[in-house]
């Protein structure tokens, strides 16, 4: 009988733990009114590096404006983090953790797959989610709670195809993406579409996850006489591709998407002859005040510097994270309440002028954006230089 009692007691304990954890998270701690914003970002896995830079933008924004006025009362804004591990199997649990901590709105994630996987959890909790740099059309399609402040893959793919044709007069492009990664494959499909429509030919290949040997692919691109290499891959792969292309003396330019806008990739291109172009949401120098202040913040704060990859080059995702935080604050102000449902209702009509440009939402929940910045890597200084602003229209 003892065993039965022990088991029953254990069960009771487990469930009471649950009840406790569900009960906490009230909106006032030691007399101070608190509103919580959920940061749903990867801190590990393939997209860990990117997720950290995006989070950094939000943290910086939070350090600048740590409070918000709701109905005449000042609320302290608290960021609550959950690591989705860049893994769709872990995303629902991470999302549930945020929901369990009674956040009012969710920001993120870097990477569309995890955003889609967590969408259902946010929907059931009646929360609005604001995607920062998840560019896959499926994130916002067919739902009324997911929004985003960035451009979409069809747009970005087209922009880069146009750019490759305009700038290099490219006729033949080699596309390389990770097998089974919806971000890479989506962009490649749109790039291919636009490039072929404009009269070019495309060879597309996929490499398996965790691959490190890219020399065969680069050799293939060389022997096929491709004019440009398009690789919208995550950061770890991008550094490999850039350094191996340099080793193999590839003479074609490499064109990448917003993920390649990262100082690790810059470091790989440093001292080589590789011409590296990326499309992105924000170009350093776009807003001098923001650049100066966030660099100071990164240099003062050791954790922030580690998260930024050890130097103070500003990634576009950081600027986007910064803007996303303020869009969320605008929505909270517009709602005039800390109630998630009211914030969700107020979000679609928010208009905000951010460092990365004007932000307003269309009826699907996507930001109305019609230009992307193209940056080129400087092989000597390892800094990005602004190249051009490109639109989708030809």
């Amino acid at each position, binding site marked *: 009988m003892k065993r*039965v009692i022990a088991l029953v007691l254990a*069960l009771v304990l487990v469930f009471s*733990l649950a009840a406790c*954890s569900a009960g906490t998270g009230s909106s006032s701690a030691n007399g101070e009114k608190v509103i919580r914003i959920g940061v749903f970002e990867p801190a590990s896995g393939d997209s860990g590096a990117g997720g950290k830079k995006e989070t950094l933008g939000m943290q910086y924004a939070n350090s600048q404006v740590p409070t918000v006025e709701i109905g005449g009362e000042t609320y302290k804004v608290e960021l609550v983090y959950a690591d989705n591990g860049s893994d769709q199997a872990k995303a629902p649990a991470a999302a549930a953790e945020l929901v369990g901590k009674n956040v009012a709105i969710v920001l993120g994630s870097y990477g569309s797959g995890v955003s889609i996987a967590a969408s*259902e959890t946010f929907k*059931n909790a009646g929360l609005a989610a604001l995607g920062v740099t998840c560019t896959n059309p*499926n994130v916002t399609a067919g739902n009324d709670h997911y929004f985003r402040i960035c451009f979409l893959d069809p747009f970005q793919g087209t922009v880069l195809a146009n750019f490759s044709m305009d700038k290099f007069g490219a006729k033949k492009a080699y596309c390389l993406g990770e097998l089974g990664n919806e971000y*890479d494959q989506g962009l490649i499909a749109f790039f291919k579409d636009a490039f072929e429509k404009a009269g070019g030919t495309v060879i597309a290949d996929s490499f398996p996850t965790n691959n490190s040997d890219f020399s065969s692919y680069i050799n293939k691109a060389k022997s096929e006489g491709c004019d440009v290499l398009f690789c919208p891959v995550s950061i770890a792969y991008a550094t490999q591709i850039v350094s191996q292309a340099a080793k193999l003396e590839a003479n074609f330019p490499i064109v990448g998407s917003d993920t390649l806008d990262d100082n690790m990739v810059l470091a790989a291109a440093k001292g080589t002859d590789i011409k590296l172009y990326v499309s992105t949401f924000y170009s350093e120098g776009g807003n001098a005040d923001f650049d100066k202040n966030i660099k100071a913040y990164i240099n003062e704060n050791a954790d922030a510097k580690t998260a930024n990859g050890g130097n103070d080059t500003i990634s576009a995702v950081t600027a986007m994270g910064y803007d996303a935080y303020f869009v969320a604050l605008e929505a909270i102000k517009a709602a005039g309440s800390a109630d998630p449902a009211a914030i969700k209702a107020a979000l679609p009509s928010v208009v905000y002028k951010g460092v990365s440009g004007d932000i307003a939402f269309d009826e699907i929940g996507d930001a109305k954006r019609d230009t992307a910045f193209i940056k080129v890597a400087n092989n000597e200084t390892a800094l990005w230089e602004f190249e051009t602003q490109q639109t989708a229209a030809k």
Partner: protein
Amino acid sequence: MSNTKKRIDRGSLITLCIILLIFVVTVVLENTINANSLLFTVIRKGAVYSLVAVSMNLLNGFTGLFSLGQAGFMLLGAYTYAILTIPNSVRDTIYYLFQGSSFHFSLLDIFQGALGETFGLIVAVILACICAGIVAAFFAFLIGLPVLRLKSDYLAIATLGFAEILRAIFQWEKLGKVTNGANALRGYPTFSDFNIKNSSGMIVFRLSSFVPLLLAGICIAIIVLLINSSYGRAFKAIRDDEVAAEAMGINLAKHKQLSFCISSFFAGVGGALFAMFASTVQAKTFTSAMTYEILLIVVIGGIGSISGSCLASFLYIACSEWWLRFLDNTMYIGGTQVPLLRNGFRMVVFSVIIMIVVLFFRQGIMGSRELPDLFRRKRIKEGKSDE
């Protein structure tokens, strides 16, 4: 022990009561406390993993075939389920890269049209789950033909290889019209669709955690019945000594194939449940790391114990997703920052715990005993003292 066949003994009765109690408590809690608590995520994922772990245990623990193909069969099940149940109306948005799906047939549409909203959903989901199992079992049959002749480690590595090949095929963009290539499948019925809603769409009664428990419970019950049948005894005989089993007239090839197919069938159903849990299906998720995770659950629970696998999967999921999460965040006790706590520490602690279990508690939680044995043992002792 002769009377165990005639009537259900006390141990089983108590076990049944506990399971029933858990079911009831889950339903009650879900409708009373915050329904978004992590507890329910743990229950749902735990239920799914229990089924998969038990199916793996059937193969590894009861038949002695060391297979590492579980993630591959889950992938087959998950995709089958999703492809069969995505409503036609959303197919074009989901397959946007491939200009729509080549399937224009959705079990959900058919049954909801014929049987009404609620009943149609139940029938469609159950049928799709069974199809998921059948597809997985069919592939297991094909794979088993050459592979099951191999011995322990070789079998493990060959099945692991098959799972990886399957994953590559499902990610191939040439098959995009069916599998959606690299893109996730979504929009199919998930656990939360089982919540009972009133006419205005408000949830009046939540069943989203009860349904996975029930579905996994039914499947596990079938496996338990199978293990206690003559087939189960044959499996155990093969595990204990192949040569002796063959000498006793057990057809080795037939029984191994049978065990492999049944295990894969339930792994396929588990995959379908996993799809319902995760609300998206993408081949990228079903890696060998997932198989290792399930294998660790089986080991922690005790190889050859069904109830051990179930207990272990709930504990494993709860630890990795919930109880240890605080380790990932910086914490302050009395104004000083606790050292070491930062992102990733949770997984380090977690893997250390696993190593400790593997090294020092080799039998796992239950060894090869079952839950009813725990309650029964005392009676056997009493019986002995009577003698």
